[in-house]
């Protein structure tokens, strides 16, 4: 497996900003990751290194293990073998330290259906220890164009609006690592564009010379996006990971991926 080749790929920020400070530690290090479900092996020997700030496109047919991998990275499922280090924390031991730093947008909305959009976001923000809860919630309601629906109960929302609420909830703590499972499903083109921007890459902000002189330091946002649209995935990613039956069968940069490789993945 060509782990080394990807590991050597400079982070996108480093490519764009030659004067940037020394490259930060990789956001994700997987080496021989194994996850079983009962006696079935769902992920086998998955080895990938993702530099901080990079975007990973996770491709593969249904049942390949994409969602399981995202859940493991989110700290929701324990790895059962191999090395799994996320944002510098070894999993499963360090999964508590990961909480609040990882945003996971799953298939299921993970919202209380009887509560309104605003109540859901406020509750989640409190548990995430967001500093200015009402301010942050208002900010995200505006960003996702949900202000008019903020006081609707979630069960009254369409699937697209629910997806937007879920995206807002994912971004509440401004996570360094975004794990997105088909983030743009159920969305109309305009919502899709808006959410695509919102969930998009974001460069690091270096620490200012003195605390008063500028915005505080902020790590680059690393993203792992699972999806079924290879073209869109290749367009916005820095690394392409193809999973098949729980194993990595494709690991490359988008410019080196051939259509034949993608076809083979889904064959």
């Amino acid at each position, binding site marked *: 497996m060509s782990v080394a080749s990807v590991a050597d790929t400079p982070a996108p920020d480093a490519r764009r900003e030659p004067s940037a400070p020394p490259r930060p530690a990789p956001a994700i290090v997987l080496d021989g990751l194994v996850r*079983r479900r009962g*006696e079935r092996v769902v992920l086998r020997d998955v080895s990938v290194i993702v530099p901080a700030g990079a975007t990973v496109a996770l491709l593969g047919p249904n049942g390949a293990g994409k969602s399981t991998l995202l859940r493991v990275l989110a700290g929701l499922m324990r790895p059962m073998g191999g090395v799994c280090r996320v944002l510098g924390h070894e999993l499963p031991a360090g999964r508590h330290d990961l909480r609040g730093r990882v945003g996971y947008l799953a298939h299921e909305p993970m919202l209380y259906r009887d509560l309104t959009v605003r109540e859901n976001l406020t509750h989640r923000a409190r548990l995430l220890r967001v500093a200015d809860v009402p301010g942050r919630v208002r900010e995200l309601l505006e960003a996702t164009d949900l202000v008019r629906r903020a006081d609707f109960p979630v069960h009254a929302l369409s699937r697209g609006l629910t997806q937007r609420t879920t995206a807002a909830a994912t971004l509440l703590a401004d996570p360094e690592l975004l794990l997105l499972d088909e983030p743009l499903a159920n969305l109309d083109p305009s919502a899709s564009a808006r959410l695509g921007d919102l969930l998009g890459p974001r460069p690091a902000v270096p620490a200012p010379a003195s605390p008063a002189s500028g915005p505080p330091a902020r790590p680059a946002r690393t993203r792992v996006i699972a999806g079924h649209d290879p073209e869109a995935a290749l367009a916005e990613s820095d690394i392409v990971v193809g999973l098949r039956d729980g194993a990595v069968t494709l690991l490359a940069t988008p410019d080196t991926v051939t259509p034949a490789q993608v076809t083979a993945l889904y064959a």
Partner: protein
Amino acid sequence: MPYTRRILPLTAVTIAIVLAWIVVSAAIVPTDATEGLRQKLTYLHPAFAIITLIAFVAGAFFGWQHLKHDRPIDDLRSYVAIHQAQNFCLIALITGGIWGRAAWGVWWDWGEPVLVTFLIIFLLYATYQPMRFAIEDPERQARTASVFAVSAGIFAPVCFGVVRLTTNLLHPQPLDDPASNLPGTAGLAFGLSVLALGALFVTLWHLEIVHKSTRIRVRQLQRKVEGEDAVPVVARASSPVTL
């Protein structure tokens, strides 16, 4: 596989202790003049009750280990301890009923704290398997079962204390009673009964663990040969865990 080497020596030791127990309680201890044969039940029912309680607490201990260290073998240990203890619990209930019939002429007595406690504990642990096999995700199943094992294992002694507090003491305490006219060998027979059933329990526990892990190993080998989608030759439902 765990414990395979221990089976033979354990079985030998258990047979020896059980034989000693039978010989001592049947032949050496004199039959009580007033109580007659039913007094021999002293060497059966309390020992089953004691071992059952210890076994449920052991199940809780292994469940706790599983929650702490997340090793599937601990879940298997806990499962097997509880499974065997359920059988012992049922026997304790039945022998208790027989004893009650012999001693007081009734099969069941609500004033008898051991019997009542064991009924409650039996009812609680009877839900262990239905609960376990109603959870689809195997890891979640194991963890939830451990939560159950810990809660129920702590509940069992608490329940015993409460039932004892709320019932009128009827239960004979033949070994504590200073006025008891039992000969010294009776104490030996009682000790041997606890030891023998304890040894029996430990051996059965080992046997079931070896049996279950063998099945798991067979399935693993089959999967290796025939691929991940192989239909297992041995059924899945009876072994709850994976190693």
